[in-house]
């Protein structure tokens, strides 16, 4: 993950900007070549989506389920 993206994530956490965190964690999941890391970030995006009732919840859940990381 770039330092810039990391800073944006930290700032969003600081501001409790959950909607931005969904987008930023999805972005982070695409920057890594490591599958576990990808799922780690996708999970965080999914939790933020769940908490806010975001329309992206189902897509993220489906992704994690496809990878065997959710039920």
């Amino acid at each position, binding site marked *: 993950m770039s330092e810039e993206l990391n800073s944006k994530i930290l700032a969003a956490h600081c501001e409790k900007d959950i909607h931005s965190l969904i987008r930023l964690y999805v972005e982070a999941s695409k920057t890594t070549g490591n599958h576990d*890391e990808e799922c*780690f970030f996708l*999970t965080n995006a999914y939790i933020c989506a*769940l908490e806010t009732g975001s329309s992206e919840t189902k897509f993220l859940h489906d992704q994690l389920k496809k990878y065997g*990381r959710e039920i």
Partner: protein
Amino acid sequence: MATYANLENVLNDIEQSTGLPNAHYTDSTLFEEEKHALIFSEWAGLAVASEIPEPGDAKPYEFLGMPILMVRDDDGAVRVFQNICRHRGMILVSEPRRIEGAIRCPYHSWCYSKKGKLVSTPHVGGPGRNVHKSIDRGTLGLVEIRSHVWMDVVWINVSGDAPAFADKHSDLIDRWADFNVPLHHGGNDSRFELGLDTNWKLAIENYCESYHLPWIHPGLNSYSRLEDHYNIELPGLYSGQGSKAYRQLKGGDGEKFADFHGVGEKWREQAEYIAVYPNVMLGVHRDHTFTIILEPVSISKTIEHVHIYYSEANTQEKLRRKNTAQWKEIFIEDIFVVEGMQRGRSADGFDGGRFSPIMDTPTHCFHQWAASSIQSHRSLMNAAE
């Protein structure tokens, strides 16, 4: 187990009986015992449903030390949970708020639906791995506390083994069937709290009876004389008083609140004030009702949460405020009495006091319920030892 004063005399006929011994008002050990014997085992008032009007509204409470979360789910039903995560017991919601999606634990982010179902356990099997065979989500939902909404009061049965609310209180529900209509909370000007330096039981005991009205509420006596009142008792469930001289409040131009739709002729000049055991005090009139939920804070501290309701949503604010002020004045007039009786319980050797066989029967009814419930609880505890 400690030895406490025998309660047999409380259970005597009113002409012989005395009230609960001092320790039931001064001993914190007994407060803890009564928490289980008188409150958790019954249908106790927690709050009013109007406090969470919209789906997703959530409000945390600490009820007798227990963290509780009241949530209105997406189907509009009121649900009551222990306000803790099934993972590490962290408090889930710390202040009233709207939950848009899931209830997320602020610690490790386990998430629950508004119906209490555990829906996600992030990283529980390691980073990015959100399942583990030992974590069965189907058995790890929020701990739901039995609840029932009646007269807008959210009644909870913490022990989980009381008869269904509608069965247990069928008599009172029938008695007040005319008020089984939408009750519209008057809003912020129709709710207030009073902090009392007294044990919660004394607030009930005072509310039950009309004997004190001429002396404590002389203003009421000008139109609602003592002889206009009657006692109400259903042993084991509730007691209170009724008045046959209710007069509607009027504004400067003679305006009045509208009657509840379909309210019967019986209520034209009649009002009733009933304490539903353990901790809810209700009042009904043709044009408004009120609810007082007692929050027992400690052996000698209680908070009264007062809410006033009308037959329609759009009532006149000025008249509403006048009604709130009138009731607040009356409830404040009672404070020195319940606090004075509390201080009186420190008099060494006080025998619990005698009852007027005519005027104090509702209060005696409450004492008998309390004493018999405490005895039953002690029998159960002794059997379990």
